[in-house]
Structures are given as C-alpha cells and as structure tokens.
C-alpha cells in the first residue's frame, strides 16, 4: 500500500524518531553495545541533539556558563557516569573547590551541578565518537504505524529539495520514539489575555525569548510579576536580581505562588520535604532515589491509582535551595523590592496607562490586585501529548493508551504497551512517558535509565549483544581515550 502510494521505502533495522537528547542517549548505548551505524537511522528536523535543550535553557536564563539543575554523574555523553563532570571542571580550572563541594553536598554545601556548556561540549565529543551524524536523516516525522507483515513504517517528510518525493517511509523491525515535549501550555488566564488583547510583549512565557523585558527594565524603572514556584521562576528571579545589582536598577519584583510553602511539608515523618518563603525545596526534579534507589524500586511495582498516588506524593513544583538565591531574596524582602505572595489568579487586564493588572484571590478569600509592567509565566505547563501529531496518531491507530498521568503507558522495558507488531517492538522514552513505572523519565539520567532498559531488551531479542562487565570496561577505556567506535 505504501509503495503503491508512490512513497519510497528505506529498510533499516531500527528507527530512532526524534533527534534530541533522548535519541542521542539511546543511540550512544546501542553503539557502545556494538550496534553498527548502518543498523540505525535517527530521523529528526534538528541538526544536533542538544539544539532544542540549549535553546530552552538559554531563553529560560541558563546560558552556557550558567549551571543547570543536574547531578555531576548524570552525563548524557557517558553511559557510566564516571568520571563525573566535577572531575572535568576540577582539572580544567585547577581548583579543588568542585571536589570539596561534591564531597560535602547537600549537607554543608549546595548540590554541585555542571555548567550547561560543559554538558553540550561533552555531547558534541561523544556524538563525533559514535558517528552520530552518519545515522541522522533530516526531516519531520509524521507518523509511526504497525506494518501488516510485522515491524513498523515510520513516515518522514524530508526538507524541501532533499528528496524527489514528499514523503519517505522507513520500514523497520524496531522503533524508538523520543520526540520531546509535545509543546508548551500557557496559564489559561494569560492565554486569554494574549488572545483578547493581542499583546504578546507584556505577557511572556519564560521558555520563549523575552530579552525585551530585561532591556526595558534597564532603560526605566519597572515592575515585573513572576508566576510559578519552580526552577525557572528561580532562574528568572536570579536574572532580574543580577540586573538590578549590576546596573543599579529599581526593578520591583512581585512573585505570585499558587501554592505558598511555609515549612516542611508531607503526609508523614518519612515523607517530608523542606520548604520556606513560598518554595518547596528539592535538589533535582525528583527526589534523588527515583533514579536508582528506593523510590525507583517501589514505583516499578505500582500500577493504576497506586502509581498515580505515589507520583502525587513526590510531585509538586519545587526548586533547589541555593545559598546565593536565598541571600538575594532575603535582601529583596528586607529592602522591600521583592514581594512574594500567595494567590490564585482570576483575570488579567490592561490598565489605561499601559500596565497590567492581575486580579487574584488568596487562600483566605481576600481579593487583591497586582499592577506590573510585565508578567513572566514561569509555570512551565506542558501541553497534552495529543498536541504532538505522532503521539496523537499512535493513540488513535496503533493501540497505545495512556498511563495514570495521561501520557504514554510503557512497560518497564519502555516498550509502548499494546503496540507490538509481529516480532517488532516500539519503544518510547522521555517526557511522553512520564507517569510510568519509572518516574524520572524527562531528565538526563532518566533518559539513560530508559536507554539501558531498551538496549537490554533489544539484546534479549538478539538485536545486539548484552554489555557485560568485561566489554563495559574496555568500552569505557575507549570512551576515556576518545577512540571512535
């Protein structure tokens, strides 16, 4: 049928749909396990794996020299996580302070985290080493469908001029989907404001370019309303405060938390997360043990409501407690230019003099207004997975269904449930699978956990050889000496 429709067919044993860090990490594992480049094709419309991530981190105020929120041993460019990034920065800068910080974290110091630039450079080196670009095929993935004879067809639209036909079909026994976030979702009241008043300048999302806000504040005094209590809000505050200090600005910062955390909180003495001044504190996106410890082991056994309940208990917006941020905010409260408050927004309207008034009510029912020049939405809401056409198609036509959190339900091996096709298998990892047996899917280490499960499952299916201790060690030396594989 595909051939009859005039669509050329390319055969390859494994298709990796998506060219971000998820596919890169999976390809890295499989190359190290011994899979040749000729057995995999990575279909993507981006040029290098860290492209989207770098764009999002940069606009949300983490340029290359700034530190991301990730552990020293979570290295997408190194499946062993050894040596950790700390070593690299220690040798490069010839100082022991990074080592001392990792040895004393999180008790006597903040969690050590790598610079964004270190992570990108590492991935570039590893991508060269595993011949990543030999596997990359540029284009937009349109859909993945099961084939009547087993395996899958992945339909790709190549860039204009790159192919004689509008579409190309990749026929493969295995498919891995890592297509990232389906999209951003705005807070409903802010979306309504933007559409009603066609104002995309004064109400911005932290994940879209918004330098004009900082430029404006550098030229005249102004007020910014920051919404959200997560890491992005903390980052935006850091930028506003740094600019305030560096350029001697008079910026007033209003900060609205929907949930205002005042102290340690949680259902029992064994499940208490620290918090204060509005924030819930946590080193990383999840409690650390989801990546390998108790919580990982526990969640692996849970289904349905029990799994949803556990997600809820460990969930909630949070941010790391960093000493410099705490100091800045305390200064702002003392000097009366940083005003955190709790509130649920009812509406946002423009004022006659070109400002924005936010009507909100606090938990005690009192109505309040906040007037600002700009609103920065730092809530980081994500769109439903059906906003992505590949996932939508998968749910409609390929038997895939949703997990307790509404994303794709996958096995512990990351095979998408109910989508097997003959002797083929369809895997997915990354944010599309959040809510599964493993919680930290949308993180560097989570992508590696998933990739390892997938590579081991593919080894069980004899697609590749399992990586034992001896081969793992020899492969590590190849990594250490940057030998191409």
């Amino acid at each position, binding site marked *: 049928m595909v051939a009859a429709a005039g669509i050329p067919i390319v055969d390859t044993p494994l298709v990796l749909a998506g060219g971000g860090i998820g596919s890169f990490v999976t390809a890295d594992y499989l190359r190290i396990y011994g899979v040749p480049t000729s057995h995999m094709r990575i279909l993507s419309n981006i040029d290098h794996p860290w492209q989207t991530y770098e764009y999002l981190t940069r606009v949300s105020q983490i340029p290359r020299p700034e530190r991301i929120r990730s552990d020293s041993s979570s290295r997408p460019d190194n499946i062993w996580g050894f040596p950790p990034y700390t070593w690299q920065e220690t040798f490069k800068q010839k100082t022991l302070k990074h080592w001392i910080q990792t040895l004393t974290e999180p008790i006597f110091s903040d969690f050590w985290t790598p610079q964004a630039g270190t992570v990108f450079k590492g991935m570039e080196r590893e991508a060269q080493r595993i011949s990543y670009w030999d596997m990359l095929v540029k284009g937009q993935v349109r859909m993945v469908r099961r084939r009547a004879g087993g395996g899958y067809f992945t339909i790709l639209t190549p860039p204009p001029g790159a192919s004689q036909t509008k579409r190309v079909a990749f026929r493969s026994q295995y498919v891995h989907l890592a297509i990232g976030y389906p999209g951003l979702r705005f807070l409903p009241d802010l979306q309504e404001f933007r559409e009603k008043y066609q104002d995309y300048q004064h109400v911005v999302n932290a994940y879209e370019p918004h330098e004009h806000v900082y430029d404006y504040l550098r030229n005249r005094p102004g007020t910014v309303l920051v919404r959200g209590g997560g890491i992005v809000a903390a980052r935006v505050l850091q930028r506003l405060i740094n600019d305030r200090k560096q350029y001697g600005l008079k910026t007033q910062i209003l900060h609205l938390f929907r949930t205002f955390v005042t102290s340690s909180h949680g259902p029992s003495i064994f499940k208490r997360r620290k918090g204060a001044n509005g924030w819930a504190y946590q*080193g990383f996106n999840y409690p650390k043990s989801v990546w390998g*410890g108790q919580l990982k082991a526990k969640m692996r056994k849970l289904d349905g409501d029990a799994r949803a309940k556990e997600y809820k208990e460990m969930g909630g917006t949070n941010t790391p407690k960093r000493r410099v941020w705490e100091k800045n905010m305390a200064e702002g409260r003392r000097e009366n230019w940083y005003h955190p408050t709790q509130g649920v927004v009812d509406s946002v309207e423009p004022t006659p003099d070109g400002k924005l008034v936010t009507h909100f009510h606090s938990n005690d029912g009192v109505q309040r207004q906040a007037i600002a020049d700009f609103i920065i939405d730092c809530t980081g809401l994500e769109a439903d997975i059906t906003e992505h056409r590949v996932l939508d198609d998968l749910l409609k036509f390929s038997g895939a269904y949703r997990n307790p959190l509404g994303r794709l339900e996958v096995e512990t091996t990351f095979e998408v449930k109910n989508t097997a096709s003959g002797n083929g298998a369809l895997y997915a990892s990354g944010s599309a699978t959040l809510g599964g047996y493993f919680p930290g899917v949308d993180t560097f280490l989570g992508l590696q956990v998933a990739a390892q499960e997938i590579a081991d499952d593919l080894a069980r299916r004899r697609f590749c050889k399992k990586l034992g201790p001896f081969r793992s060690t020899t492969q590590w030396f190849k990594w250490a000496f940057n030998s191409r594989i």
Partner: protein
Amino acid sequence: MLPTLGGRIQTRIFLLCTVGVIITAILTPILPGMTGTMGERYTATYLILLTVLILGIIWEFIYHFLMQFRWEKDWPTLFGFITFINEGFLVWGLLLLGVVPGVDPAPPALAFWILFMVVWICVWAVANGPMRVPFIRWRFRGGRLI
C-alpha cells in the same frame, strides 16, 4: 549513593570481598607492631575484615532506617565516608574487649587504624565511581549486583 537495603548489603559484601581482601593482603606484612608468624598475622587481619563485614550488615539496617527520614531517600557521599567513625570504634572496642573470635590479643592501635582506614577509603572511593565502569546496571538498581 541511592541504595536500597538489598543493594547496600550486596555492595558491602562485594567490595569487602574484593577491594578489602586485596588491600588486606598487601598491607598485612607491613603493618607496624604486628607480632606472630605471617600466617597468624593474616589470620588476625582477615578475621578483623570479616568482623567489619558482619557488623557492617547490621549497620546497613540502621543506615537504611535513618535514610527513611530523608525526603530524597539518598545517602550522601559524606555519610558514606564519616560512618567510619561509628563502625571503626565499634570494631576497635570489641577487639579491646577480646570478644572477636580468633583475634587475641588485639593488634596495636596504629596497625588496626591503618588497616581499617585504608580499606575504608578504598572501598568508599570505588563505590563512588569506578564501580560503575564494569557494572553499568549497578547504580540504577540501588546497588544490587544480582
């Protein structure tokens, strides 16, 4: 580290039986103040290592319990190191009391602490990094090897 109870115990047994055994083999002949034949010295040092291992398994239950009070359910690198204090002094105390079977009299303090600390530091250092090189699944399984 992000250990489970089973992972803690397996890792401790594995590392003491590999790293611990090798370090003890190297150190025993050069430990200061040790008396007796070489066979007697090795018997004493390996019995001390065995005592550390057995008591360590009990300690792991205590650490696991304490870890439950941590939101992250993690075990910071620093904790993995400073627990040499409680573990070391317990073994040393038992040696002084003469209740460790087969080790009588207790070895000189300097010999004991050199042996104990070198083994401790090496095991801790391996667990915090190189262990992941041959065993790529180990860190994602809470420290379990099997």
